[in-house]
């Protein structure tokens, strides 16, 4: 038997209105003024793809009741003692992180390029008289130029988004050009009671963009802002692989 962790919240145990993965009971384990919510799981039972999104449902339910730190999907403890020991070891960092996200939710903004990038878009043909070396270099230069232009454009979009949000830079995390089609992936930590207004403001801003399509999601639990100093948090020797993941 193993415990699959979902979230960490302050003690004492709050009342939450959700059940664990696949409707099973949620377990609460408390130590150092904190508690960890988990679902008891047979080690031989494989996790399936639906369990990933079910983990989100569980976290949303917990975060609706109390400040909470989402735990990365797939985190499992051998037993209650192991879970409590982790809370003991990292209680200060976990409390700091809880204070950071308390009363706040995450809004996700994704900007998708409307047109293919320079890698995929038709390009002017290289001079037919050019040798293979020159053709190669000119094609490579064209690719790099297109890629650089896209990165600059994406960076400008981030600046405009941050200006629209009017929040501290520390409350925004972003990536640009993380894939062929994604221009910007941005997360902002917003006071939960202001999230609907922030979302409406973002949607108005995105409606005026011509080169990208904007998608706003949330409010979500503060996944992106729940991280604590990871330098001492991962022990390769204790890592285990959950059975059945990835789903066959």
């Amino acid at each position: 038997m193993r415990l699959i962790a979902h979230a960490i919240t302050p003690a004492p145990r709050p009342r939450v209105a959700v059940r664990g993965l696949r409707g099973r009971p949620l377990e609460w384990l408390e130590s150092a003024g904190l508690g960890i919510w988990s679902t008891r799981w047979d080690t031989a039972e494989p996790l399936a793809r639906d369990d990933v999104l079910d983990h989100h449902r569980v976290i949303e339910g917990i975060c609706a009741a109390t400040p909470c730190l989402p735990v990365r999907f797939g985190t499992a403890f051998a037993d209650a003692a192991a879970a409590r020991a982790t809370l003991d070891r990292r209680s200060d960092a976990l409390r700091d992180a809880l204070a950071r996200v308390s009363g706040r939710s995450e809004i996700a903004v994704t900007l998708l390029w409307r047109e293919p990038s320079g890698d995929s878009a038709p390009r002017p043909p290289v001079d037919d008289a050019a040798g293979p070396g020159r053709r190669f270099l000119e094609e490579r230069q064209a690719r790099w130029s297109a890629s650089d232009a896209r990165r600059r454009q994406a960076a400008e979009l981030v600046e405009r988004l941050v200006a629209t949000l009017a929040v501290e830079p520390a409350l925004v995390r972003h990536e640009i050009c993380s894939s062929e089609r994604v221009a910007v992936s941005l997360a902002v930590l917003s006071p939960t009671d202001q999230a609907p207004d922030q979302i409406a403001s973002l949607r108005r801003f995105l409606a005026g963009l011509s080169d990208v399509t904007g998608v706003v999601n949330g409010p979500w639990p503060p996944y992106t802002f729940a991280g604590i100093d990871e330098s001492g948090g991962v022990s390769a020797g204790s890592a285990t692989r959950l059975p059945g993941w990835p789903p066959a």
Partner: protein
Amino acid sequence: MSVQPLAPSDASLLELVDRLLNKGVVLIGEATISVAGVDLIYLGLNLVLSSVDALERPRGGPAGGGGSSGGGAPRT
């Protein structure tokens, strides 16, 4: 290379899966999540495209494949 447009609904799922698999508190005792042998922890949205491929694979369908086989190239 032919590029299929990414629908907004796909982007929403990608963003959520990215957070579930790559964000959140990392704790000792963590299980390593992988798709076709490629660990997803610490990898960005680009490779999460591959994880979505795994998520969307019908239960009981063929294992492996997708963008992550053969070294984890993203499905872009």
